[in-house]
């Protein structure tokens, strides 16, 4: 099944977390932003479904007009490499130092041009030079910033943000929201997963669509 519009980069059709649960349908155009009210520890694994690493129990999830399950594994991996993800839990490899963690996707996908992006975003978020320590030895605030650097450094075509500002101080929030605005201006589709969004975040993400389940 093809995309309804060429500009629709992410599209969900009747996605359900459980067979008898509510169905979610939405589309995120290039440069658009969508908020999915994602319940913590709920049954929905939105990040996994949006990035195609797991199919939803029911419904279809499209990326650039192609359902994830229709892509071959190598193609799907390459497409995921063009997305930036921020994870609510984990996300950094404990046995790599911060430099290796940030560089990992760029090196695996052989993107030498990521060097400039990594330095630029690390300076932007105030973590340059990247800490030489491994993830467990870096303070939580810096770990979160490293995740942000890694997500933005690949010049993402889409951002999937799972509670990216959880417990973040005000100055970090401002920086992050500015980074999201810049990425969207460059055409990046953004999906924000969180229980609730405060007024500042909503304003920063405007125009912002909100996903809602279809009535049964």
């Amino acid at each position: 099944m093809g995309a309804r519009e060429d500009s629709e980069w992410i599209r969900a059709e009747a996605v359900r977390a459980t067979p008898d649960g509510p169905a979610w349908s939405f589309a995120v155009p290039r440069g658009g932003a969508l908020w999915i009210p994602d319940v913590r520890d709920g049954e929905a694994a939105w990040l996994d479904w949006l990035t195609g690493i797991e199919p939803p129990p029911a419904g279809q999830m499209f990326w650039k007009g192609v359902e994830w399950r229709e892509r071959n594994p190598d193609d799907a991996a390459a497409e995921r490499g063009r997305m930036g993800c921020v994870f609510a839990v984990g996300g950094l490899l404990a046995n790599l130092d911060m430099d290796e963690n940030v560089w990992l996707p760029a090196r695996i996908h052989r993107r030498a041009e990521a060097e400039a992006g990594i330095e630029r975003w690390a300076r932007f978020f105030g973590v340059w030079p990247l800490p030489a320590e491994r993830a467990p030895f870096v303070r939580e605030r810096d770990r979160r910033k490293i995740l942000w650097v890694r997500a933005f450094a690949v010049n993402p075509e889409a951002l999937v943000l799972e509670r990216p500002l959880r417990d973040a101080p005000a100055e970090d929030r401002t920086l992050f929201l500015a980074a999201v605005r810049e990425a969207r201006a460059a055409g990046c589709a953004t999906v924000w997963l969180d229980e609730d969004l405060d007024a500042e975040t909503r304003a920063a993400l405007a125009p912002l669509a909100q996903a809602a389940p279809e009535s049964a």
Partner: protein
Amino acid sequence: MEKQDSGGGCGKKGGTSDAGTMLYRGEGVPYNAPQMSLLGQIGAGTRARLGGATRTIALVWAVAAKSVRPDVWTAPLRNVLARQVLFTGLEATNFVSLIALIVGALVVVQAQYWLVRLGQAALIGPILTAVVVREVGPLLTNFVVIARSGTAISTELATMKVHGEVRALDAMGIDPFVYLVIPRVLGVAASTFCLTVIFLAVTFVGGFLCLWVIELGDVDVGLFFGNIIGAIGVRDVFSLLAKSILPGMMTGAICCDEGLAVGAAATEVPIAATRGVIRSVATLFVTSLLISLMAYL
């Protein structure tokens, strides 16, 4: 984490379920399953073991097939391979050498005692070759590798899975099978082969030193090592290669498989390590037996 198709397909199975709520008796038989007859239990156990063996062979095959693609070998992958060889091979050298030295002395003491009584002292070289090169060397080296690296691999990958690191790799478009499994399996196999060669060399040196002490220095170095080298045939070389590389690959594959099969509960991590060791030891014995049968019968 189940992938769409990662080539190797490391996924969930025994131990506990996704939510960590369903307990298993082992070999994939849940505790709440209805009681089976004795014959049924034997059949179920045999099927489960055959399934496990098939899975291991499929994993080893997938590693071999995918690792020959040059585009797979990115810098991070080479880095993981180097670290695995460093940990499994280099850091185990001293321990393996110590064991080899002691084994060399033990075998020589016994061989010398019995061969002298039988008037066949010149057979010490062939005896050492038959015992150490064909069986004891590869077997003991593999035991050391399983005990050190097998448990470490299972535990590391299980912890990564529990902490969401495998999910993060997947979401970044990095195939966990390629990044985590291939370099570990190949690193363990290469290290096991190198450690086996070191084991044999040190065993023979240890054996010679022991003999030299027993005979109060009246031992011909050239005769001793010449006997040993002369007793090694083509079949021994084949057996040595097969018995070090194949079980090494299988140990790596089994321990990666067990590590990546855990769900979300931290309590599954030690279970994965234990299952990895047990399966690896069992596979080691079966593989060694099959290779011996093929090489010497």
